[in-house]
């Protein structure tokens, strides 16, 4: 399909979320209901301890409403219900019934007239602790035979599963014949890589407000990437019919993946409201929040084989992940890591083994890439090592082996696959190399002085949604209601969330493009909820534009069909003889018989006519599942400057190439790429949530004073960040579009590590690459060089 000229797609308009820039936007924590109580949560001070008894009579004497484990349903659930039920591990209740499994885990909660009173009451809760175990912090400790069991058993769907050696789940995948593949190899490289836990640090901490309704139902405002899943879960947990659970769509103050699942405080707030029979508001503190969710770490042992000409023959990938005290989504995570790994290069023969292990740390969940930046760091580092060993340019080696057009892509693990139909990998590597002046790159041995610069390349991708030709292990569909008002303006009702990346702006542009209605006349409002919208799985997996807008486009086309049918009656003509166009002068969509534009009627006139003649509303509601999961590709060329005296790494320059097919919001698209680059630098060079091995607490004590993320001053100067788009068109996407969000982060860490190698000739296998690590490595290298010179000297003597 050819690229078309669009009137709205790819154009810049005022953003839809005007409330955000005027400070009028409401977030969950801004909701106040008359008569509401304020809730606070009692968090565990112990990483692994038996709860014998909780006594809150003193707190209740102060007038507070309290809940403990006995007050919440016995219902065992997984807070993330994106996967199909038989592939969903269930290990938790609203409050833990028997023991706590990480510091910061909620064990009880109080609601009172003021937050101060609630805190005062919380102090009166007495807990009788039973056995306390030493926390399992390290993965290797947790799988030992004599390690305490964090769980005895959990449920996979309806099936009971015994937990041995704290192994939460495993996933092994074989493609081809791995032994044969390595036999064919002329060069084999193998290394072990580690990526760390980091914190999401989204601007908004998790919040919830719950109103118990007269009919036994509940109304809930809460931080969420998918309101319908919250509705279904709350209904199931509290045994409320799903039509009586209403979850409001409210603006997200950032999430980065931490609200794909229902947040742990949401059902606590509901339980309090049901007990109090009054509205309850619960807002997490930052300290509560940092003890609530974390990015998945990953340990990867990767071995790859290749012919001397660079053709890959086999790859063996062994990964371990320690997931903390709950299994939120480790099984699909292991599947996705397999998919990201398998879809980067044509390995031909694959052996993949993945193991997830419980520890007594903060539960891990998706964060900007769902395992993609983690496995990308291993693969793209090892590809550089292989290139050097084969004496092939890293770009050439990538071009020779990348998975591209016509190949199979695993969009969400081994069960969600589709064929790649658009691919800008080659263009991005070649054009990016020119912009980054790749040919001027010198080897590490040529660099001298205190400050040494290096350039690194890495490429990555992410899926656009989790659709596919066949239903896999992941639920994926979106929906919308679109209606035309009597003056020709349009309302879009969708449960699709916007993380701040511009998903709603994209929705408005897609509707405007289909219905030819001026952008400012398309409204996408916040006052919708699970009652007024049809299902949308979640804004996750970089699916907002491809899947969310895909569904919106599908519904808009149905509305267009209705509209042309009504107009045909008025024009006494056939719908196919009519043309829909945007008349900018009138600020209206117009319809006219083809070739006779002067005989137009405005959309307003047609809608008005339909209204006063009682023809009925021009509106349509439906859902759509995308039948593909096209990869959006990214390529990072990063220049670093390593200070060999302090170990500090600065990033003076970056060239970032993105492939999102047609780009719907160019400014926000670039913003996402640059924003992800900043977060990627934190992941590469700075951030880690470290634990005290004895107490099991965070070394930063839950305070972000001691958890730094990069600020704007750590970024290259604006003029030194070059962002360019590949010239591609995704035939299955809305107007040729794919996603960008998570792709934008996937190869930052790898490119930074490769650039550091190019600067100082030292390969780092563990993130983050902190000044101390750099300095130590430099010292070691200097000593090794001295030693080898001495040895050579000895021989000469």
């Amino acid at each position, binding site marked *: 399909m050819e690229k078309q000229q669009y009137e709205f797609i790819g154009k810049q308009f005022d953003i839809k979320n005007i409330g955000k820039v005027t400070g009028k936007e409401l977030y969950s924590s801004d909701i106040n209901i008359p008569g509401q109580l304020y809730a606070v949560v009692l968090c565990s001070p112990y990483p692994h301890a038996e709860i014998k008894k909780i006594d809150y009579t003193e707190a209740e004497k102060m007038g507070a409403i309290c809940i403990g484990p006995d007050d919440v349903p016995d219902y065992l659930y997984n807070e993330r219900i994106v996967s199909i039920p038989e592939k969903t591990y269930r290990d938790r209740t609203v409050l833990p019934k028997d023991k706590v499994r990480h510091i910061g885990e909620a064990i009880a909660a109080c609601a009172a007239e003021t937050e101060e009173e609630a805190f005062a009451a919380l102090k009166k809760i007495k807990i009788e602790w039973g056995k306390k175990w030493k926390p399992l912090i390290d993965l290797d400790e947790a799988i030992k035979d004599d390690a305490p069991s964090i769980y005895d058993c959990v449920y996979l769907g309806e099936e009971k599963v015994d937990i041995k050696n704290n192994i939460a789940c495993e996933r092994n995948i074989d493609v081809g014949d791995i032994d044969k593949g390595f036999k064919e190899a002329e060069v084999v490289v193998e290394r072990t890589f580690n990526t760390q836990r980091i914190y999401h640090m989204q601007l908004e901490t998790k919040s919830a407000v719950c109103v118990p309704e007269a009919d036994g139902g509940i109304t809930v405002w809460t931080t969420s990437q998918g309101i319908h899943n919250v509705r279904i879960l709350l209904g199931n947990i509290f045994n409320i019919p799903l039509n009586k659970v209403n979850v409001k769509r409210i603006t997200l103050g950032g999430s980065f993946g931490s609200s794909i699942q229902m947040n742990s405080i949401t059902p606590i707030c509901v339980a309090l409201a049901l007990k109090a029979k009054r509205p309850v508001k619960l807002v997490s503190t930052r300290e509560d929040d940092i003890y609530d969710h974390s990015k998945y770490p990953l340990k990867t042992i990767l071995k790859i084989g290749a012919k001397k000409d660079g053709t890959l023959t086999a790859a063996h990938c062994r990964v371990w992940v320690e997931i903390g005290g709950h299994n939120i989504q480790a099984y699909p995570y292991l599947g996705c890591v397999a998919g990201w790994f398998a879809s980067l290069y044509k390995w031909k023969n694959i052996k993949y083994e993945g193991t997830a292990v419980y520890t007594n740390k903060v539960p891990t969940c998706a964060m900007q890439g769902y395992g993609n930046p983690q496995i990308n760091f291993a693969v793209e580092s090892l590809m550089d090592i292989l290139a050097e060993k084969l004496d092939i340019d890293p770009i050439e080696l990538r071009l020779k082996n990348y998975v591209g057009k016509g190949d199979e892509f695993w969009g969400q693990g081994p069960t969600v696959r589709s064929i790649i139909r658009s691919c800008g990998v080659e263009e991005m590597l070649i054009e990016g190399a020119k912009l980054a002046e790749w040919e001027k790159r010198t080897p590490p041995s040529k660099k001298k002085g205190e400050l040494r610069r290096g350039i690194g390349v890495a490429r990555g991708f992410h899926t656009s949604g989790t659709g596919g030709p066949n239903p896999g292990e992941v639920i994926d569909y979106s929906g919308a209601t679109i209606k035309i008002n009597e003056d020709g303006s349009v309302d879009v009702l969708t449960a699709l969330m916007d993380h701040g990346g511009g998903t709603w702006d994209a929705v408005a542009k897609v509707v405007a493009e289909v219905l030819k209605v001026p952008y400012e006349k398309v409204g996408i409002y916040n006052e919708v909820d699970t009652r007024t919208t049809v299902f949308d799985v979640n804004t996750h997996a970089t699916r907002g534009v491809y899947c969310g807008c895909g569904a919106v486009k599908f519904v808009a086309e149905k509305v267009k069909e209705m509209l042309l049918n009504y107009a045909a009656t008025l024009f006494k003509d056939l719908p196919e003889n009519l043309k829909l166009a945007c008349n900018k002068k009138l600020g209206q969509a117009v319809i006219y018989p083809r070739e006779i534009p002067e005989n137009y009627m405005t959309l307003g006139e047609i809608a008005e006519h339909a209204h006063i003649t009682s023809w009925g509303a021009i509106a349509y509601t439906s859902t759509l599942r995308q039948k593909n999961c096209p990869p959006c590709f990214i390529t990072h060329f990063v220049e670093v400057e390593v200070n060999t005296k*302090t170990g*500090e790494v600065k990033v003076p320059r970056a060239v970032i190439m993105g492939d999102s097919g047609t780009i719907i919001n160019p400014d926000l698209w670039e913003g996402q790429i640059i924003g992800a680059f900043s977060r990627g630098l934190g992941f590469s060079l*700075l951030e880690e949530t470290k634990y005290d091995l004895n107490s099991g607490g965070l070394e930063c004590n839950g305070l972000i004073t*001691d958890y730094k993320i990069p*600020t704007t*001053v*750590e970024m290259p100067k604006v003029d030194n960040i070059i962002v360019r788009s590949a010239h591609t068109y995704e035939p299955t996407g809305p107007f040729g579009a794919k996603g960008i969000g998570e792709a934008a982060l996937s190869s930052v860490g790898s490119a930074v590590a490769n650039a550091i190698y190019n600067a100082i000739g030292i390969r780092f296998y563990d993130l983050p690459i902190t000044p101390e690590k750099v*300095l130590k490595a430099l010292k070691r290298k200097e000593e090794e060089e001295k030693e080898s010179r001495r040895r050579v000297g000895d021989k000469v003597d």
Partner: protein
Amino acid sequence: MSLFKYISPKTKDEVLEILQKEKSNACIVAGCSNVLPNIRDKEIKAKVLIDITNIEQLKGIYQKEDKIFLGPLTTINELIYSDITSKEYKVLTQAAQEFADPLVRNTATIGGNLVTASPAADIAIPLLTLDALIKIESTRDKREVKLKDFFVGPGETILQDDEMIVGIEFEQSDVNKNGYFIKIGQRKAMAISIATVAVNLEVRQNKINQIRIAAGSVAPTPVRLTGAESFLKNKEINDKLVEEAIDRVREEVKPISDIRASEEYRRYISGLLFKRAFKKLADSSIHQFTN
């Protein structure tokens, strides 16, 4: 959250009287960049907050005979934009520019930075190399102490419950006009220092006539490295001397390992920062000095 009594006196004497009455029950507040977080963390349990931001006597940067006077209410930003400090006492301006971020610099005060007595107090380091004098008053007494004798331990100073800082002074000497400050943090803004070093130097005929070295985040308090200073004094500057001085600096600091950096890294970095600051100053004092 606790309940507080808030008082906003108009004169210094009123403040001193309230302090005399309330003693440890009172807490002076100005920029609030430390007090508010500390109240939230329940580290401050005082019940009376004395807001001194309206007291004009405690503000301003000006020349007073042969000295420079800094009111304790001087904000960090004022150090950057004052003609007096930005032109002649660059060591202060350099430290101020590295301090937190522009928002905090607009409210945080020098007095607050000193009484908080953090080992990482960025403004204390240049004031140490300026050999600043702290003027202290209470209803019963007036006294002056050298800043190097002011700090007792992390968060602790020699101030009594009824005392307050009413001024900071340093001399308009040659050595004070030739200073340099360097900071290393986890990131460039809003980061507690991993290590800071300030040096003030006066060279005469290639010999070190006067030198003061101070370091932050490498000991329980901001410290003067007097051992390294006396080692360097009256010596002729050459590369060997600098290398030896770096070793002295690394021996003299007493850092700990924490979430921001290890003891080893801090020790190493202190020496490096000293070297950079010293060279910067020495290079501009004498031209024949080589790298």
